[in-house]
């Protein structure tokens, strides 16, 4: 039973690593958004796995909240990128350089 928990945690840590790698390397806004989503899902996996091995359901509750909130966040992020695409015809954050100093 404990070894299963370790498996889940390892997958979650791997997802965290993938997310951080994506944020550090990619310059396409949608890819970066995906990287953030991967980190959030790594945390959700952790929560559900821990909740499975604990006698109450607090972890699953938080995971549900976090999934719903992440969806709202992505909706806002995608609408921002649509506005940006109309202005620049591009979603590469390296091209957004009107603010400097």
């Amino acid at each position, binding site marked *: 039973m404990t070894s299963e928990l370790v498996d889940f945690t390892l997958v979650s840590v791997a997802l965290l690593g993938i997310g951080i790698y994506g944020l550090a390397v990619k310059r396409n806004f949608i890819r970066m958004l995906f990287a953030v989503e991967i980190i959030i899902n790594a*945390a959700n996996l952790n929560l559900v796995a821990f909740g499975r091995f604990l006698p109450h359901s607090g972890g699953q509750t938080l995971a549900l909240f976090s999934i719903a909130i992440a969806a709202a966040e992505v909706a806002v992020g995608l609408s*921002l990128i649509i506005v940006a695409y109309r202005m620049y015809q591009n979603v590469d954050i390296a091209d957004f350089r*009107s*603010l400097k100093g």
Partner: protein
Amino acid sequence: MLEITSTPLVLIAILGTVGILLPIISIVRKERGSNSFYAVIAFAALIVSMGYVGYQFLNDNVIPSALFSEDVIVDDAFGGFFAIAMLIVALFTTIGSFNYMRKHNSPAVYYSLILLATIGMVLVAYSTDLVMLFVAWELMSIPTYVLVGFMKKNPSSNEAALKYFLFGALSSAIIVYGISISYGLTGSTNIGEVIQGYSTLDPSLLPIALLSVGMFIAGFGFKMGLVPFHQWLPDTYDGAPPPITALLAAATKKAGFAATIRIVILGMVVLHLDWTIALGIIAVMTMTIGNVAAIMQKNLSRMLAYSSIAHAGYILIGLAIAPHSSLGLQGSLYQILNHAVMKGAAFIAIAGIVTTLAVTHIDKLKGLGRRMPITALGLIISLFALAGIPPLSGFWSKLMLFGGALDAGSVLWWAPWLAIAGVLNSALSLAYYGWITRKMYFEGETEKRVKEPKSVIAVMIASIIFLVGFGVYPEPIIKFVELATPVISLSLMP
């Protein structure tokens, strides 16, 4: 159980109802333009909420700072203190938007989002459960992403929103990950139980607990603008609509500090860490980098953005020495309240300057003291208060902070150095505040007076009364801060 008349629940009811009703009213009325109608409704809701918080304090219905509770939220003096600071800023933002929003579309949504973001900030300060804290944190963040990008046709507003969104989403992802680790280690999401679980943790699990506390620092640090996490901040503050910048700089930042005081400081105490020195180093770096970068800026809102980073460093001094000196933490809370008023007023002044003159470059502000006398006076008073000039309110909070740091010197050898760095940085900041003053009052000759927006004048007068009044007579605020400051020590553990 919380009573139905407890402050956070009533605030949710008032602000939430009005916040949701505003867009519905605008759909039913089928008209777009009447900005002042919605502004007045939002203003009334905020005033009523503020009145309710004050009423609860005056009637002694508020328990002293508890930090823990079995519920998800607690109606304590600590939360009430932050609620007042954030409601002041939300009021400033609403009043300051009267004129700014006149030229823009969909005012109902704008004011509704301000109210919803305000609920989020207030609830962050009240929450004693990690689930509640996370939900409140997102309720605060998501409306502000939209508000920063509210000027759809303006590329810099959109760019500011994209940068803010990316870092904000990353910060909340890191916070959830931190919560998931602490939940796995302690089997609870209640902050009191988490702290207790940490204090009896198996030593072999200590590094993982450290990781979770580090993730909390990083996640909250993004919003607070601490130094390794501050890159988004100048761009966002510069590109966002100026009243919204006031909301970001003066209020959402403070929510980060509230959450940090509730979780990180206690977590570090029970983990027996000498991490205070790490926070001390971050504090010194934050204020130095903020002030040095501010000196080089040519744009007023960017300069104030960097000065806002520097002020996060000052506030962090008190948090770093919190386990050893309650005076330092009181200074932090006092500085938080002062900074809310000072930065709020300064950015509303910028909003007034942008709407009437459409400039933010410092060279173009020559003779502002003659062109817009009241706005200029309010801006100067808040800048001097930010620098900590004696008769103003900002002086007392810095005095308490640096005094607390010297006080803690008997336990921590490096604490007096924090005070020295803080004083040197204040002197440095005076250089660029003085430069703005010289531009506004002693340069340029031929300018005529222009009509100043009445709403901005109202905010300026309110902030001048607060900063000068409580600077000359600080006792009531100091009493309030003492009431609100939690006592951080091991004996208070649940």
